[in-house]
């Protein structure tokens, strides 16, 4: 089931009502959430529920074993192998075989392995990482293994964030699942605001950009500079609207159930450096890699060489996490290189993602934005030759001053400016629809007028529905 469907509009109020009717019994609330989550996922493809079940069960049992047996290493390794094995099979089998075949053929050898075209289960990377976080945290002693099987299964399958995150660490979400939740009016209202804003970003920004990007991308070999540049910029906004929109909806829905999810985005395109961008973009994934890979590898405390190595490893793997394509790996390495170069720069730029963006930051913001946009071209391309062809066409047309004219995407660009304007004005807030504290924000009529306007814009300016990009990861 998708957030953007009539079935979800029916599903959410039913689950919400049932959930709060059971507010005196939090175990029953968990059961309600678990059933709802399995229904939510099963409506996409019920067969893959078995994978979620296996992942959940193996991690749950591993947790219990880790607190009871002496060979803790073995338990954690077995669990990692099982979960990463499932992920590898479903996500990387085809990629591995294809590349191995190409490699062997260069030596005149052939490989006789069945070429399975495995369907990629939606959200597999997200829930696998979430279950690994639990096993590792229990292994490290940061968390006690839970004996509450329903709470644990709900933690893995919690429907708002099951298919596209945020990736929740067990230390954050599991304690919330095992404790009593009480309904909080302000929290629920905040949740609704987040949902509305998330839908706006997805339906108005991302979906409209997607239409223009798809049209322009298909004919980029004949396009002028302006079209190519706008395609790049529009895709930059498409992926932001799409993914951060999903996260906003997920966080908002979770708030309706009294559950607090990790923030996944903090105005990433207002970053002054690539390092800062990665503290603002897909925060939960970067936190996962930081805690379970970068720091165990030594982080940045063992000299420049090892720091560079660690950054390269983390970003290469984070690229690969997105999908079994070389473009993702190159995209990850591209960001790693930018990050390393940024570290080598002597000039100090604002890098604290919690600081408010100032007008004086705009030049750094624009440079960072452009660098990130170049990266998105690699991300969007089917293969590296397509990415190179895009860049080569873009720079050729620039050198030849073949600026051309913009055929598509003017409307989408306008929406992007609208988004930037709203986010800039409300940059000190996580949700731009949060109006309290503003002069007019105290007036309920004004607040509601704003919500109605956003709703109507969302409804009548929405683009043709597109699947969330991050579903494929």
């Amino acid at each position: 089931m998708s957030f953007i469907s009539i079935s979800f509009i029916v599903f959410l109020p039913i689950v919400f009502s049932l959930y709060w009717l059971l507010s005196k019994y939090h175990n029953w609330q968990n059961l309600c959430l678990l059933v709802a989550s399995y229904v939510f996922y099963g409506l996409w493809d019920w067969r893959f529920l078995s994978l979620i079940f296996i992942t959940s069960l193996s991690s749950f049992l591993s947790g219990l074993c880790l607190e009871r047996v002496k060979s803790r290493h073995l338990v954690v390794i077995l669990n990692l192998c099982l979960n990463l094995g499932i992920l590898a099979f479903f996500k990387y089998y085809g990629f591995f075989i294809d590349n191995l075949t190409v490699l062997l053929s260069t030596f005149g050898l052939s490989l006789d392995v069945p070429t399975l075209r495995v369907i990629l289960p939606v959200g597999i990377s997200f829930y696998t990482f979430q279950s690994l976080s639990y096993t590792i945290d229990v292994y490290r002693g940061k968390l006690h293994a839970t004996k509450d099987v329903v709470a644990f299964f709900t933690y893995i399958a919690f429907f708002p964030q099951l298919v596209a995150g945020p990736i929740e660490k067990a230390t954050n979400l599991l304690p919330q699942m095992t404790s009593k939740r009480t309904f909080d009016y302000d929290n629920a209202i905040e949740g609704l605001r987040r949902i509305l804003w998330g839908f706006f970003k997805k339906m108005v920004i991302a979906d409209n950009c997607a239409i223009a990007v798809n049209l322009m991308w298909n004919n980029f070999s004949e396009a002028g500079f302006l079209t190519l540049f706008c395609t790049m910029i529009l895709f930059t906004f498409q992926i932001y609207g799409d993914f951060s929109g999903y996260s906003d909806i997920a966080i908002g829905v979770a708030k309706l159930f009294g559950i607090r999810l990790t923030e996944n985005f903090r105005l990433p395109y207002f970053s002054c450096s690539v390092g800062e961008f990665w503290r603002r973009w897909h925060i939960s994934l970067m936190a996962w890699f930081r805690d379970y890979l970068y720091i165990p590898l030594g982080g940045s405390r063992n000299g420049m060489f090892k720091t560079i190595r660690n950054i390269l490893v983390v970003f290469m793997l984070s690229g690969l996490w997105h999908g079994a394509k070389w473009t993702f790996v190159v995209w990850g390495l591209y960001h790693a290189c930018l990050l390393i170069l940024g570290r080598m720069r002597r000039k100090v730029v604002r890098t604290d993602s919690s600081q408010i963006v100032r007008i004086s930051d705009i030049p750094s913001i624009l440079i960072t934005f452009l660098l990130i946009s170049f990266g998105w071209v690699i991300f969007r391309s089917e293969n590296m030759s397509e990415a190179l062809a895009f860049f080569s066409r873009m720079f050729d047309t620039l050198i030849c001053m073949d600026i051309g004219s913009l055929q598509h995407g003017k409307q989408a660009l306008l929406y992007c400016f609208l988004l930037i304007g709203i986010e800039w004005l409300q940059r000190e807030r996580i949700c731009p629809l949060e109006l309290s504290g503003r002069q007019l924000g105290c007036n309920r009529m004004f607040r509601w007028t704003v919500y109605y306007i956003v709703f109507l814009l969302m409804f009548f300016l929405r683009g043709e529905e597109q699947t969330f990009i991050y579903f494929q990861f």
Partner: protein
Amino acid sequence: MPMKKFCLGVMIFVIPIILLLSAVECYVRLLPNSYKYKDDWMWKNGQGVSTLVLGNSHAFFDINPSEYGDSTFNLANVSQRLQHDYFLLCRYADACPNLSTVVLVVDNSNLFDIPMEHDEPGRVTYYQLYMGYSEHSFFSRYSLELSDINSFWAKIKKQWNNEGLSCDSLGWGNGYLLSLRNPKDFLDENVRVHRFVDWNTTCQNVKCVRAIAKWCKSHKISLVLLMPPVTASYTRKADKWQLDFVQQVVDSCKKDYGVVVADYSCDNRFDDFDFFDTDHLNDKGAIKFSALLKSEIELLN
């Protein structure tokens, strides 16, 4: 208490939205459209229909029933799939006791069509809402016109331009005027091609053609499988095996069910000025073609 306050607040907020959207949905549904018009027409005037034209835009724009008197009705629509043709034929069968001939377009354009849900979801809604084709549940996106915002705006725009109904009183798509023809559409690089996508959908389409042929035979109704005129450049650019496949399908229907095959796809009586684009006739071309087809149908009767 907080829950009560929350639910009340949400309801107060949502009710005006629901009312507004319901009003807009009702308004859009009241706007004239060819689907609703054809459905109404069939129920009201089906008794007098002797010839029914089915198919996609190649039938909708190419066949002008007024050439045959008022006992012929064009039940085709843009992008209409063969499954819809079959459904509509069965749906109106009882309303048309005098039906003696069905003209069905079967060519390179519709035999390789993919399900409409994939490329034109807005039209699925029209069949669901106005022609009783309830393939999808009430809770699907196809139950509301507003769920496809592009179609919604297109419809509103048409209404503002006084082009709400895209067909004439006998169902002919009369919007492809010679004066609106764009010569650029005829350049080789702009020729539209209908490509094979997958076997599953193609087999489904073949099954529908055969089902229609079988149905017509069992109801003693003559079926004309029609391949309308297309430009030479279209034929040149089309995949040869696809054209051969179409021929095989119509030949097998002819053999098994005794249908009449009318192949005008390479008819040199049509030149570029009879076309609106490379695979649709313009208004003048449609009148010319309908007159030619008339003699074929008269022979049949």
